[in-house]
């Protein structure tokens, strides 16, 4: 049974040093507030999993929270490199970071295999490319019916998956809609799941677009954190702060400016700062 609690409590109870942690979100609904709470609580040696590690993982890697990254595309979308990820990989700062690198197709299939309680995923891919040479977790199987050689990767089974969603009802059922990415699979593949939401409502309003509903009993902890996906976005609540993604390029380029930003915006702040961000985006958007 899920339970509403503070973000501080949800992270303290569910995220341990050394855990395999997936904070998922495919550009949309990225759980920034929850990631910042992990930084404030000083978690170490995390094995981070995500298809598209962007600014949030750059921040977690830059403060030294992780020693391993499982991923398929690590960049600042439309802007360029993740400088903290690059510094860790190229220079071992602040600590070396082991990479387990896949393609999107592999990771999407691996999450789904995890949700299906299967040991591995099978798909048609990786033909002719170099990733299998550098990632021993990319293997192949022969189809027992046709003899075709297919790619195989282990299922992803996080200790804890963390996502952000639009809202939860009083009973703790969660709704997300818009670009829903791989969040349903990532939650159902995990031992524990934390969801931050924009708001708690009496009843889930008529779901629009392509809503994903996660029943309360699939979730370990729910936290109401309005604005918790900033600078990414929550469809129907606020837009993506593209200007911040562009600004991150300069903030993160040097270690000193990065650490100063973390101190001022993460260590010295709490989850309530995200409501201010949400209001600022919506004010800029007002006619």
């Amino acid at each position: 049974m899920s339970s509403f609690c503070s973000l501080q409590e949800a992270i303290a109870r569910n995220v341990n040093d050394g855990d395999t942690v997936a904070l998922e979100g495919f550009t949309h609904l990225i759980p920034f507030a929850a990631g910042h709470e992990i930084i404030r609580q000083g978690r170490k040696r995390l094995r981070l999993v995500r298809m598209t590690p962007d600014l949030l993982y750059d921040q977690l890697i830059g403060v030294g929270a992780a020693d391993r990254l499982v991923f398929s595309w690590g960049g600042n979308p439309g802007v360029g490199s993740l400088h903290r990820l690059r510094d860790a990989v190229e220079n071992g700062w602040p600590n070396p970071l082991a990479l387990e690198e896949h393609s999107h197709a592999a990771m999407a299939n691996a999450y789904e295999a995890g949700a299906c309680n299967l040991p591995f995923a099978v798909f048609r891919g990786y033909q002719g490319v170099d990733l299998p040479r550098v990632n021993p977790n990319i293997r192949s199987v022969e189809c027992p019916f046709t003899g075709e050689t297919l790619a195989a990767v282990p299922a992803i089974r996080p200790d804890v998956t963390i996502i952000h969603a639009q809202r939860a009802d009083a009973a703790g059922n969660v709704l997300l809609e818009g670009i829903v990415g791989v969040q349903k699979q990532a939650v159902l593949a995990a031992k524990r799941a934390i969801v931050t939401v924009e708001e708690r409502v009496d009843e889930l309003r008529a779901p629009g677009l392509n809503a994903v509903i996660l029943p309360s009993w699939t979730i370990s902890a729910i936290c109401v954190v309005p604005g918790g996906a900033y600078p990414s976005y929550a469809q129907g609540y606020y837009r993506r702060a593209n200007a911040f993604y562009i600004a991150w390029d300069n903030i993160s380029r040097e270690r000193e400016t990065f650490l100063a930003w973390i101190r001022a915006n993460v260590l010295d702040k709490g989850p309530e700062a995200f409501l201010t961000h949400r209001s600022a985006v919506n004010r800029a958007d007002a006619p």
Partner: protein
Amino acid sequence: MTNPGEFTAGEMMTIAAARALKSSDVCFVGIGAPSAACNLARLTHAPGITLIYESGTIGTRPAVLPLSIGDGELCETALTTVSVPEMFRYWLQGGRITVGFLAGAQIDRHANLNTTVIGSYDHPKVRLPGGGGAPEIASSCAEIFITMAMSPRTFVDRVSFVTSFGHGSGGGARQALGLTTRGPTKVITDLCVLEPDVDTRELVVRSLHPGVTQDTVRAACGWPLRFSQHLSETPRPTNLELQVLRELHARTAAAHESHG
């Protein structure tokens, strides 16, 4: 801003890339330069084209170019939005896509692409974002168009890492791997359009953009470049193409500033 009738090399690249697409295409839009070309095609000669982004949006019709492949604009204007596993399993692996449009940091003479590392994998000189959807886009779409600006740093004799398989070591390489799709059939740059030779699958220059010489293209390429026997000049951008492209960029710049 250029004078009426004049155009930049970047505009020529986007316009030539857009022309490669048909209204009947179902196109998987890669991150970066392809997005402008695909939307220009939709706004000019290919209004019926179905644009698909890997974030799950199918049949999207954005008024401005997205900064990322998952901006809200893509979802709001799409026919439907599916989950990422569904996108890769049913739609891409399922063989529903006619064209994949990719870019890269490095390309070789057989159109193999690198977006992973420059230098060695374990001790890279430059760590790039990685493959994302590209490895399976390159193998599962019926054919692949590539667009990227040309320089000796990007058009290289040997890519550091094969992120996406083009024509491997040349003729017959795709068939040997059991690939039934055509692979890269067109590479559109800021200087010229290249296509693979029928037998060797080596990229050959098919048309030079207006005002570009063979020497200029040769100097921008890291391997000894071959030119088609039927070398032609890329048709100049029309006023309509330039106008639609510039309006698209202007709307995009305004939108990304105001939503900071």
